């Protein structure tokens, strides 16, 4: 029952945004409350709210202080957060192809060594995971996934890389990720996907949404090249699974 859950904390983020924090840690239940509040806010249409940004454990709500003040907005947010969540819509499920190892996953061997196993075993554990898009952030389309196998939890690299390629599939700490654009990263690079979670002239521009479910499957490097060309041409090559 939502009513018995502790209320979120309201953390001021300047004069035009407030962070509604449900947990300080990565926690699927808190993330579900974040996404539920995000949906409920969109449905409530609170005057003055300009944008909301779900993250693992909090919802950042941008607003216009010319239309609503911090205290009034805080009351509305707490009231809406205390309501039972709107009925859950069935999550979309994506199957994402990944070319593991080699030039596409330069850390695969090192991760296997660190965990005293083989690269194939690491791939098997990564592919076996049932993931959930907890948030999208940092750079366009960067999808942070919860659901990483506990045996794959490992600290980020001591020194982050200044460049990691577009489509990088990586793990860091307790998280897994789908990276869309080239970016710096301190995570361990297991492979690359030809899937673009963000592509400008495609409909939809953004493929993944917080709350979506994700599984991975391995492809060889030749298939990667083929799918990459199709994706570049605007084709959506991620497979959407109909339940």
């Amino acid at each position, binding site marked *: 029952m939502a009513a018995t859950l502790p209320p979120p904390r309201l953390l001021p*983020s300047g*004069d035009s945004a407030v962070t509604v*924090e449900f947990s300080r840690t990565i926690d699927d239940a808190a993330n579900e409350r974040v996404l539920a509040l995000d949906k409920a806010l969109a449905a409530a249409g609170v005057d003055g709210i300009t944008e909301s940004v779900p993250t693992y454990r909090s919802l*950042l709500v941008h607003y216009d202080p010319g239309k609503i003040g911090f205290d009034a907005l805080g009351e509305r947010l707490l009231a809406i957060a205390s309501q039972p969540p709107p009925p859950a819509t069935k999550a979309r499920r994506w199957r994402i192809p990944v070319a593991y190892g080699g030039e596409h996953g330069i850390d695969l061997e090192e991760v296997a060594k660190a965990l005293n196993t083989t690269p194939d075993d690491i791939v098997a554990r990564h592919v076996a995971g049932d993931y959930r898009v907890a948030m*999208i*952030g940092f*750079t*366009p389309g960067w999808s*942070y996934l919860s659901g990483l196998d506990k045996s794959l939890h490992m600290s980020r690299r001591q020194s982050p890389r200044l460049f990691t390629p577009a489509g990088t599939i990586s793990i860091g700490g307790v998280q897994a990720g789908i990276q869309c654009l080239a970016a710096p990263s301190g995570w361990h690079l297991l492979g690359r996907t030809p899937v673009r979670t963000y592509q400008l002239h495609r409909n939809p521009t953004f493929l993944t949404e917080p709350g979506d479910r994700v599984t991975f499957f391995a492809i060889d490097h030749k298939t990667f090249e083929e799918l990459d060309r199709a994706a570049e041409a605007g084709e959506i090559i991620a497979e959407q699974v109909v339940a």
Partner: protein
Amino acid sequence: MSRLVVASIGPASSVQDGGRHGAQRYGLTVSGAMDRLALAAANTLVGNEPFAAGVEIGPFGASFTARDGAVRVAIAGAPRDADIAGRPVAMDTSATLKDGETLTLGFARSGAFTYLAIEGAIRGELVFGSLAVNARAGLGSPYPRPLQPGDEFSVDAASGAPELRIELPKPVSGPIRVVLGPQDDEFDDANKALFLGSEWKISATSDRMGYRLEGPTIKHLHGHNIVSDGTVNGSIQVPGNGSPIALMMDRGTSGGYPKIATVITADVGRLAQTSAGTAFRFQQVTMAEAQDEARKFAQLIRNLPDRLRSADAVALNIEALSDANVAGHAVSAVDAGTWQVTAEP
């Protein structure tokens, strides 16, 4: 149609507008002008909407040549010498380039960013309602990258309207105002006092993503890793080395370092225009004060047209500006060659 051709331009110069709103949930940052008031003032001078797309010019010089007709422009923001074919152009005024004439802008004397607005505004392909350049995401139009010599804009032919100046309020001096949070509870009272009580300087390795602050080391109460959460323009995060970074318009939409405080909306542009190496302080204000200032700031921008005057008195302004030009050019707060590198993700 006329054309305005970029004859020369330094780094950290790009097309910017009010920014790209509504897609931060997908990791798409807002971008937009570092000094919103200055962009709005320049646009108002040539009759544009306040946040129409203009050229954000970094601390170095730049020049623009009119082709195929006259072009009416205006400049505001970081002060610098400017002339059209040898005729001085004062800051906060409009001016018209005849066909073939060149507007030449010197180095910023203080601050970093000067805004060039063009009558009728820059045209391009809107993405999420904005032409603003976000180089990392490959976004921005007509050029999805910083400007280069030879770039050009198709623009309206000059209307021939009388030239104007805009009387802006005297710039606020004094500390950059902040509200504490969202993670001020990750710091003890002594470290909060150290942050608020110390002198800070902006590092030269700063850019549109973030301004690195040089000063004392701020220690965390529980370590520097928090679970990533959302950021705003002006978030002041404290990474592991204890040197705060003020997140600016090209920030990541989420970050995994505790944020001790947030610069108030009315002062983000002032921070953006603080030259590298200049000492400044922060000052804590209450949420009520910050929101009051935000409302006044929005009202100031809405009412900019009321501040337009005939350009008759410009000669006096030029003298005042020449007198003020004693410091030489400012050291840049912005180095286009550096990116903020974080351990995030």
